[in-house]
């Protein structure tokens, strides 16, 4: 090694750029690339060569070419990790689980949106076959931010339908657009908080950060992903919308001013029921993706429930504190009670053989 060329600052900087390349690629090509790069910047003028060695940097076009190479090399690897073509068994499990979580999350947003539309029609008196809104609950016309929830809701419903039809990228674009009105609404809520109003800020922020993650998770749907079975997912959509709308409708008729029915509570109950069925059923327990997806969703629902309890403790009116914290606390405990066995089951099942390619 004594005949090895001294390492200049320029070489160090170029090697630092090469670190964006996958380690296996660098092991095969790095020395060659460094030699070619240094030869390409070589000059016969000793003074200029010394200056370049100490103060030179790879030009931006050189850096760009290495970055482009890194993207080209890493994209197939990322696809494989998400269950794409040539994926290892662990990639199939991760990809299948992410797709299941994303589909459930989009289903929840779409069902919520449909229920809101029906509620708005009802409030506007457009559903004559239902008893009207009690007079004391009639509120001011919807403000700008409530109106913005309409395009956002349409976006989630469209994204869900696109996923069921196999239009993955269209679903991703529409869902990304649906996140924007929510972001605008949240920023307005934050301004309200600063002005002394009492919005439920932490929960909103949590969901705002969650939804872009759902959009990113749609990258796990690739050209080899089979289209989901439409019938059960459409039934789940209808049942979900009916549940959200029905519970809201009943709480209004019951003149619930405390706000006992909230989104984290509803998702907690649905998760506890789904987890109970999963843990009790021998057939569904065989699929590790369901266990991992449910365990992941249990964590998300638990965090959302805790965030909302913090919101209630900080912002709710004093008469709401006891009922909201008691019911919400009980829901959090129930989620924890099914979440822990789910996490243990999921950890056990990921060690078992992964699903066959036909199950992707």
């Amino acid at each position, binding site marked *: 090694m004594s*005949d*090895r*060329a*001294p390492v200049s600052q320029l070489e160090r900087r170029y090697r630092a750029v090469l670190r964006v390349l996958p380690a296996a*690629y660098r092991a*095969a*090509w790095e*020395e*060659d*690339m*460094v*030699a*070619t*790069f*240094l*030869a*390409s910047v070589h000059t016969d003028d000793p003074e200029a060569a010394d200056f370049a060695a100490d103060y030179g940097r790879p030009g931006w*076009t*050189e850096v*760009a*070419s*290495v*970055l*482009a*190479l890194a993207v*080209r*090399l890493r994209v197939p690897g990322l696809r494989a990790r998400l269950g794409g073509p040539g994926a290892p068994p662990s990639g199939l499990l991760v990809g299948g689980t992410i797709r299941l979580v994303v589909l459930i999350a989009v289903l929840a947003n779409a069902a919520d949106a449909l229920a809101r539309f029906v509620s708005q029609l009802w409030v506007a008196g457009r559903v004559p076959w239902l008893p009207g809104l009690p007079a004391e609950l009639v509120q001011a016309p919807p403000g700008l931010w409530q109106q913005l929830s309409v395009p956002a809701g349409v976006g989630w419903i469209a994204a869900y339908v696109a996923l069921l039809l196999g239009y993955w990228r269209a679903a991703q674009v529409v869902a990304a657009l649906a996140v924007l009105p929510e972001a605008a609404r949240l920023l307005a809520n934050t301004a309200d908080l600063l002005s002394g109003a009492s919005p439920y800020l932490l929960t909103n922020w949590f969901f705002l950060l969650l939804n872009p993650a759902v959009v990113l998770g749609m990258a796990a749907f690739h050209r080899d992903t089979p289209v989901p079975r439409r019938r059960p997912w459409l039934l789940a959509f209808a049942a979900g919308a009916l549940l959200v709308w029905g519970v809201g409708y009943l709480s209004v008729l019951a003149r619930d001013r405390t706000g006992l029915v909230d989104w984290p509570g509803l998702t907690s109950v649905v998760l506890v029921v789904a987890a109970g069925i999963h843990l009790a059923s021998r057939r569904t327990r065989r699929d590790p993706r369901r266990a991992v997806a449910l365990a992941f969703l249990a964590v998300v629902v638990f965090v959302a429930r805790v965030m909302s309890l913090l919101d209630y403790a900080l912002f709710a009116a004093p008469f709401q504190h006891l009922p909201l914290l008691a019911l919400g606390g009980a829901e959090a405990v129930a989620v924890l009670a099914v979440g822990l066995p789910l996490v243990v089951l999921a950890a056990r099942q990921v060690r078992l053989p992964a699903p066959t390619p036909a199950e992707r």
Partner: protein
Amino acid sequence: MTDRAVTEPAFFILAALVDAPRHGYGIVGEVDRLSEGRVRLKVGTLYGVLDRLVAEGLVEPDREEIAQGRLRRYYRLTDAGGQSLAADARRQAANARVAAERLRSWRPAGASRPAGAARPAGAR
């Protein structure tokens, strides 16, 4: 493999290796010369293409040398690489022929006017 069109950098890299094995910087210089300065390969681009050409069996490592304390790896064209380059050269030549034949019957908009109409007044 031989039927598929190769990218311009890949075409020139294969062409640069026809007469002799070359190391990375040698390929950069030869591609620059062959393309009359139109294709200036960056190192990331060169090794992105070289990696693919080696994986496809069109190029293979020839030998390694140590020059001024640095590894210098030479690459040579394989038989499959030569065939691929020849096929692409034929394809490009056929494309050029088609375009040249079409251009023979093409007149620019200004050239379709009657003789003399475009002549400057002062040229009478």
